């Protein structure tokens, strides 16, 4: 019987016999765990710290951007870019671009006989164009200017002949004035330039003398507006502009044969037809909205493109309705029809024609203030027919001038009244 052979267990080829390898592996695992945890913890801590640091930096950068923008616009010179302009602007701070939104919340004006001064309150926000925090604040600026005042001596002033007809009234303000104390009248009802004449037809009423000035037609604009000031100069400061040349949104809608407030709703978002409401001041039967009664606007209408149906030059036509402030007609004439009621100053580059209308039972006159038609041809007459009324009114003139000067304020250099205030975080 063949003996059973038991195979001998041979050692491993490399001779590993201990537990060094498992121990080393276990140690490696432990160290790996340790390092991983430390890295994870450090990484998390670092991320938290970095996040907080970034958030803080973002906030301070936004604040810096806002202050930087204010500083850039705080110059005391009249440089155009030194003024706040409503809308959006941009500024770079800390290598980041910020969008700055500006809006003027309010203007409070102080009027004296010779100056207009205003305090404007602006709101500014600075928001990074990329991700980050934004801030907002308010700031006050002051502006001021010597007042521009018109030099007029009559209810109606014409650069050429002036014709008064029918049962119309032209007054120097001797009676029937609204809003002004007595004693603020001028001597003349009508004043024309040297060499021009005043024609009276029918049975009109002239309160005050018809006066021929020593001022020539060529001198009239400088005499009334001031040296080197033109209607274009004034139109620049208009609140409302019609005509492409003036940068207006549209041409004056002559075809409507309507006044400013008739065709469009007073609550319309389009405020170019909101010329204020003079009715409240004359204690009439129709009550104006109180805020409409406070609104005095400067309206400039360019007549360059006004044509009649035959395509011939046509005057700007206003039929009925009302307004208050200053109405400036450039490069053409003005034809007022119906019961147009206006309180303030009307300046016409060429000729003024007022016709028809009873003036309504709500108003003593159609034009309460003064009208000046500079005329381009002395042969063209300014007609005042029907029972339309032009009455000199100093208060209305002052209000209109204030509206003009208020517009001019925007071109004046701004002075920061104080540092930014009402600060807040925009994005939290």
């Amino acid at each position, binding site marked *: 019987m063949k003996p059973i052979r038991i195979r001998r267990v041979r050692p491993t080829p490399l001779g590993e016999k201990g537990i060094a390898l498992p121990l080393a592996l276990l140690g490696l695992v432990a160290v790996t765990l340790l390092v991983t945890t430390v890295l994870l913890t450090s990484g998390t801590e670092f991320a938290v710290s970095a996040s907080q640091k970034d958030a803080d930096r973002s906030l301070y950068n936004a604040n810096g951007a806002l202050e930087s923008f204010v500083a850039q616009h705080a110059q005391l010179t009249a440089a155009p870019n030194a003024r706040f302009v409503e809308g959006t602007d941009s500024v770079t701070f800390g290598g980041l671009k910020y969008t700055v939104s500006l809006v003027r919340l*309010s203007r*409070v004006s102080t009027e004296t006989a010779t100056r207009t001064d205003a305090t404007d*309150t602006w709101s500014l926000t600075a928001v990074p164009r990329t991700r980050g925090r934004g801030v907002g604040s308010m700031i006050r600026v002051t502006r001021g200017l010597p007042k521009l005042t018109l030099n007029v001596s009559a209810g109606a002033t014409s650069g050429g002949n002036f014709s008064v007809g029918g049962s119309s009234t032209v007054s120097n303000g001797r009676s029937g004035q609204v809003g002004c104390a007595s004693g603020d009248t001028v001597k003349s009802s009508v004043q024309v330039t040297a060499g021009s004449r005043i024609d009276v037809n029918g049975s009109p009423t002239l309160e005050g003398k018809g006066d021929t000035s020593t001022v020539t037609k060529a001198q009239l604009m400088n005499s009334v507006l001031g040296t080197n000031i033109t209607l274009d100069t004034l139109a620049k400061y208009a609140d409302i502009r019609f005509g492409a040349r003036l940068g207006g949104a549209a041409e004056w809608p002559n075809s409507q044969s309507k006044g400013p407030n008739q065709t469009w709703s007073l609550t319309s978002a389009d*405020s170019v037809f909101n010329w204020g409401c003079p009715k409240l001041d004359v204690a009439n039967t129709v009550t104006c909205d109180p805020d409409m009664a406070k609104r005095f606007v400067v309206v400039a209408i360019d007549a360059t493109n006004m044509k009649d149906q035959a395509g011939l030059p046509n005057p700007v036509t206003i039929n009925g309705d009302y307004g208050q402030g200053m109405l400036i007609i450039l490069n053409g004439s003005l034809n007022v029809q119906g019961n147009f009621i206006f309180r303030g100053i009307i300046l016409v580059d060429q000729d003024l024609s007022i016709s028809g209308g009873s003036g309504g039972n709500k108003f003593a006159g159609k034009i309460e203030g003064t009208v000046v038609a500079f005329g381009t041809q002395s042969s063209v007459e300014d007609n005042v027919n029907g029972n339309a009324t032009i009455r000199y009114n100093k208060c209305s003139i002052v209000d209109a001038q204030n509206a003009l000067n208020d517009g001019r304020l925007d071109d004046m250099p701004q002075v920061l009244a104080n540092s930014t205030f009402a600060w807040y975080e925009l994005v939290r």
Partner: protein
Amino acid sequence: MSSAELRGARGFTLVEVMVALVLAGVLAGVIFQVVRGQARFATVQSAQQEVQQNARGAIEIIASELRGVQPQGLVETSATSITFQLPRAWGVSCGNAAGGPINALFADVADATVMFARDAATGVMADTTVAAAATTTRWGPAPGTTLAGRAEVTGLAVQNPAPGVAGNVCANIRTATAAAGLLRGMTISGNNLPATTAGRTLYLYQLVRYDVGSMTGAATGDDYWIRRSDGLPSGTSQQPLAGPLPRATGLAFSYFKSNGTEITPGSTRADLDSVARIGVKVVARSRTKGRANLVDSVMTSVLLRNTP
């Protein structure tokens, strides 16, 4: 296998086995300790993170609100609490008689819904000067006094027509329309509204209070939390902000003038109005019990941006 072969085979002696077992036991113990220590370390780190994040979060929120506190807006101060007027909207009044309503123009900003938060804790404060940003006569509750008579906003309505449009009630201070998203006219109604004149700065504020409260109601020191409330005597609208804190003094405030002088909390109105910087310290505790029950603190110093 023959017996001779078996005798020739090498093996372990008992001593060798014992030594190996002891060594293996020691090594296993070491590894166990390392792993256990590591696990504990991870737990501690996690707790540390939690504490730090809680404290930092609380600090960030408190600092953010304090930074924008309105001028002279500190109502009550102590070493462990603060009540202040937090602006929700800044605007310009169009002028109104006492009792309101107040018509005002506000910047229309992206987070307007937050800005115009409406609740019973919203008051109105009007700047009485146009020339200076600082308020020379404050309107609002005096520190330590009852809040009775404080203005309360009960209604906020968007003006229609909008600012600049014919018929808008603020035509006296603004006649032109503004680009979309820049301006908002609001009509504020409520109780005890102050009289304002046109052009005056107007603040809509919300009363905010930070202090430490016990969530269990018992002063066991076990469940202290930082809470944010409306600061009204009724104590409504309390919100737990961060915690837990190890003690009731886990939230601490210190007050400084612009020259660095520290002001005793709860002092006079003049002192409160001169506070320019507030130190905030949060001592937080981890929620984990046992050996990982950590306490850590975070501090910051907040410059009041709207201080005159």
